[in-house]
């Protein structure tokens, strides 16, 4: 049988959270009252800017948004990542997400999460849902402290498609036999890259594209 993979976007596809929820969890667990207040208020104040950036360009949004992590320590982020799985992510996993992943595994697919979230936030979830690999953004740390910059290339949009292609080449997987799942039109490139794309809980634009290209549409909610 041809080796193939199933690539899953995470936020909105497998879980109902997104990177803002994740950051909010870190902000709310800053350790000191002033820290919590400072980061939460700063994040809240920038909501309109985040929204505008997300609308215009997901890459700009990610780059700008991850600056909020600057100054947080690496070990703290890793520990909080584990705690966040229990407190935030586990309850947010869509009820049928595990079934979909299990079905892909039974079909002989390698399970890969591909997400614009940061690796330390996704790793525990990947373990929980049984992913074989994670392709995620990596925060730059200097002296164990986050700089707020993401190591390029930022995993989003067209870069997700490149990452999938590279992954398939590296692991000897057939791209045209592989599956990709996403909820967002911003992942159109990644969906178009594989032979078997599927829209999951799609937004309006992706639903319309999926119908036009005869892609299956799933609802995991």
């Amino acid at each position, binding site marked *: 049988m041809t080796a193939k993979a199933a690539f899953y976007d995470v936020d909105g596809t497998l879980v109902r959270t997104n990177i803002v929820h994740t950051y909010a969890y870190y902000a709310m667990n800053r350790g000191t009252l002033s820290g919590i207040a400072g980061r939460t208020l700063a994040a809240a104040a920038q909501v309109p800017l985040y929204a505008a950036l997300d609308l215009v360009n997901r890459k700009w949004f990610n780059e700008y948004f991850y600056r909020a992590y600057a100054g947080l320590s690496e070990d703290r982020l890793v520990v909080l990542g584990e705690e966040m799985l229990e407190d935030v992510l586990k309850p947010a996993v869509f009820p049928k997400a595990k*079934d*979909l992943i*299990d*079905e892909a595994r039974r*079909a002989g697919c390698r399970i890969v999460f591909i997400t614009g979230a940061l690796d330390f936030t996704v790793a525990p979830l990947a373990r929980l849902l049984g992913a074989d690999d994670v392709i995620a953004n990596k925060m730059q740390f200097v002296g164990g402290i986050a700089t707020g910059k993401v190591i390029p290339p930022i995993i989003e949009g067209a870069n997700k498609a490149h990452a999938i292609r590279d992954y398939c080449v590296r692991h000897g997987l057939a791209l045209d036999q592989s599956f990709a*799942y996403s909820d967002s039109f911003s992942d159109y490139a990644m969906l178009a890259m594989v032979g078997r794309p599927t829209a999951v809980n799609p937004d309006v634009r992706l639903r319309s594209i999926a119908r036009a290209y*005869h892609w*299956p*549409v799933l609802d995991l909610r």
Partner: protein
Amino acid sequence: MRPLKTLKRLYDENNQVVVTEKGSPPRVIFHGEDFLLEDLPLGTRVVFARLPLQPVPNPKAAIRWALNHPEGMDPLHALLRPGMKVTIALDDISLPLPPMVTPDARQTVLEIVLELLADSGVDDVHLVIANALHRRMTEGEMKRMVGEKIFDAFYPDRYYNHDAEDPNGMVELEHTAQGEVVAINRRAADSDLLIYVNINLVPMDGGHKSVGTGLANYASLRAHHNPKTIRDSESYMEPSKSALHRSTERIGRVIDQHLKVFHIETVLNNRMFDGATGFLGKREEDFTEVDRLKFEVLRYTLSKLPRVAKRKLLMSIPAPYDIIAVNAGATEPCHEKTLEACWRQYSVPVQGQSDIVIWGVPYISPYNVNSILNPLLVQVMGLGYLFNLNRGIPLVKKGGVVILCHPAYDEFDPEHHPSYIEFFNRLLPETRDAMVLEHKYEQEFATNPSYVHLYRKGHAYHGAHPFYMWYWGENGRQHVGKVIVAGAENNHVPELLGWERTDTLAEAIDLARGAVGRSASITLVKSAPILQTDVRL
């Protein structure tokens, strides 16, 4: 004043074959969600269904009698003991067509059987819909099928759809001598008694096919749902001439060795239409002025509605079927009696084959209840069901022409038929060869996790199902020389199916005559109501 000849015809109700003469009325022909009213060339033979047989006077009494006098088994009450585990499997929504007026025959049977089980101290009872790789029935459909009281008592924990892809929900028994996989629903396999409640509408259904297909999985169905088996079947509506049935019999016999299976088979008459649409069950010669008026009103109404509304309207009209026979007991002796009743209702003797056969394709098939008759289903209706509704000798001559009346619209239901969409748009442009399709793509579709998920958690037909639909038309495709879709609204759907198209039925007949000769014999088969031609050569 009607001439004497016409009056005589009016009272000759047993004549199912009428030859078109000068003065014959135009024929009402199904055309998807619309109707055609067509004058046919002189000499055209028109085959009608038999009149509905008289129902059993008291269905509940007939069911009780069958349970107490089963074929080849002890009466049901004698098989029961307190504390035993019983599973009742039910035919799914693909039968009958259209769905019957309530109470459904399955509800009537269940009301009696469940009472008997309760009286015998049997509490561990599950109701499983034997939907095989068909879509899961919705909650509303499930309630309608068994009635509110049973639904409330059993749903959802003890009344559910079979899941052929549940990794823990299937059991593989030994293979048949021919190496066919025998796999069935685990709950059924673990039960002390499996009761199968069937509705027999056509002779293809029931018997070993009930459990061996309805509760099976993809691996088991592959044994007979393949193009070779269909090619080897002279007609899969005639079990004695069907390789499909020979395979299901082998599988069913293995199941019967491992499980105690008690069948309850009901046979319905062909009273598909009543009231405002009752004229559809009549010959046009027998139409009254009121019938003509009803037809014109229906046709006018449909012509003013968008297709979605037409579909909704037509799907909302239930069929007033009656039960004409109930048999129970062991698989083979019970089914033998069921088939006899089936043929009494459906079999219509016809003298000789035809060069050209015309079928109106209605809005509904077993696979699109409450959904769209998409192009693959038009294909399965034409070259599958309608072509195979014979007793071993096709009505159309080898190399002859089939004319199907349908708009052949390019519409699919993404909820019920997602894998059909890919099959139609990706695979058919590459090849129509069923063997190639099976070899290259069936496995891929069957294991596609998106399609598996949509089958298990949504209401989609399994990823392998569009292939079965294509295979179902295989012996029709091998037999006929040409298929013409009369009234097709586009070019590309007929082209992808390998067919030709015309705007009207008259043009289709002209085109067909061009292929098989001006003196070609023509037969119009008026179904629905369903009929099975018994061609005598």
